[in-house]
């Protein structure tokens, strides 16, 4: 496929790998302790595991898999709210497939569908609008999820509904924004990151400027990164180059897609339809200022939360889950006592085990689970005080 195969070329990958090793070696001459680099985006996590990129890296580099997986940070209480909407008899509840298996406090959407709720998986929010057109006597609710990559698509769908005068369409809005989430990670006193791979498709919408604070206020290098294996390797080399030279800048590796200013029509649609929340609860990360958005007042009639009553109850994670610590990079997935025990991709306890973009599911799918379990047991023998 155009611009895909070229970025999977093993020969170029080898060269990039060698460059990474060389740079890391030079950096490690004057520091101790591993270099902690976070890929924020679940799409990057997926590429990293699928192509075994961690195995190509020197030991000095540790990749921390960040919280940029929208279903992974969806709080259980919000899943319960989605279920309450989906169980209303007049409602057709529509969602991307990724969200179907996220556990709420009692059920997932998939279980509710099996029990008879009218829940449909769609490829695009435009398909939900089509359903609303075809079913004027029903209310079609779209489960709006995701960072800025998906926000323009839902915003434009609402604007289209307005133009057509469609009244039986609404969003259950759970969109979250990237920069405040990265800022919360950087403000965490336990955090010791040395640099970021920033999400390429979020950047394609919002541009480079919203990431400037990472370099300027927190003095961390950041590279906007594409999603093919070579993109990741090249970006890692760019991060290391910055670290070696003592620079902290926003650099763009993904120039074939990301323009400095982002996508203007997308930004305009978002600004019309959404407004920032003061605080939003992210699963595992707690409450973050200005990270979430809701539907702005002029578009209130497209807001499922204002059309229907919701339980709106906050539900904490099941006891023993370490999802938050994994999301913040404080532990690796296999160090969670539930990993591959009571939490598996078939029966996920935490959301990180649900989506192929979640760190726990990625480890479970691509790493040798038995070896990881043994590693955990050995670690707890060596340090019985640890979880």
């Amino acid at each position, binding site marked *: 496929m*155009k611009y895909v195969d*070229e970025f999977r070329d093993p020969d170029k990958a080898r060269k990039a790998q060698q460059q990474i090793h060389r740079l890391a070696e030079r950096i490690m001459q004057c520091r101790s302790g591993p270099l902690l680099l976070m890929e924020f985006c679940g799409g990057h996590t997926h590429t990293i595991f699928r192509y075994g990129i961690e195995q190509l890296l020197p030991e000095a580099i540790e990749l921390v898999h960040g919280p940029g997986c929208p279903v992974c940070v969806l709080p259980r209480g919000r899943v319960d709210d989605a279920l309450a909407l989906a169980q209303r008899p007049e409602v057709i509840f529509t969602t991307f497939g990724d969200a179907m298996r996220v556990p709420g406090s009692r059920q997932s959407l998939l279980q509710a569908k099996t029990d008879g709720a009218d829940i449909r998986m769609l490829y695009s929010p*435009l398909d939900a609008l089509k359903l609303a057109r075809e079913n004027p006597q029903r209310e079609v609710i779209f489960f709006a999820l995701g960072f800025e990559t*998906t926000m323009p698509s839902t915003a434009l769908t609402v604007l289209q509904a307005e133009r057509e005068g469609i009244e039986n369409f609404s969003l259950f809005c759970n969109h979250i924004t990237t920069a405040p989430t990265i800022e919360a990670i950087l403000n965490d006193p336990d955090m010791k990151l040395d640099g970021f791979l920033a*999400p390429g498709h979020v950047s394609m*919408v919002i541009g480079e400027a919203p990431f400037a604070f990472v370099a300027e206020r927190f003095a961390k290098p950041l590279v906007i990164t594409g*999603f093919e294996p070579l993109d990741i390797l*090249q970006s890692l*080399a760019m991060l290391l180059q910055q670290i070696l030279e003592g620079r902290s800048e926003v650099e763009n590796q993904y*120039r074939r897609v990301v323009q400095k200013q982002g996508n203007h029509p997308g930004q305009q649609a978002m600004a019309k339809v959404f407004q920032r929340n003061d605080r939003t609860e992210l699963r595992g990360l707690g409450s973050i200022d200005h990270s979430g958005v809701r539907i702005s007042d002029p578009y209130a009639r497209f807001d499922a939360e204002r059309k229907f009553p919701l339980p709106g109850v906050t539900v904490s994670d099941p006891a023993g889950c370490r999802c938050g610590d994994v999301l913040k990079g404080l532990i690796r997935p296999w160090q969670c006592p539930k990993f591959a025990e009571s939490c598996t991709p078939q029966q996920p306890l935490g959301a990180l085990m649900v989506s192929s973009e979640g760190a726990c599911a990625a480890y479970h799918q691509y790493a040798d689970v038995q070896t990881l379990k043994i590693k955990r047991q050995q670690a707890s023998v060596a340090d019985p005080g640890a979880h």
Partner: protein
Amino acid sequence: MCLGIPGRIVEITDAENSMALVDVSGVRREVNILCVVEEGKPAQEYIGEWVLVHVGFAMSHLDEEEARHTLQLLEELGELQEHLS
């Protein structure tokens, strides 16, 4: 959820609502192209362009020149190493 697929605009189906058929690896899909067309420029002029498609919306152009440039940088990375080693 945040992944996009490259595709090529092959036909404008509804200029008023910015809808087009995009060929994504041989499969034709109806996609909204509002985010990649300039105001005032007829949608027809975008036929043949490569775009990145994401949940039913074309969100960005694929810039051939930049793609080549990025690949070129990767190539040079290798040459630099051969030179050093």
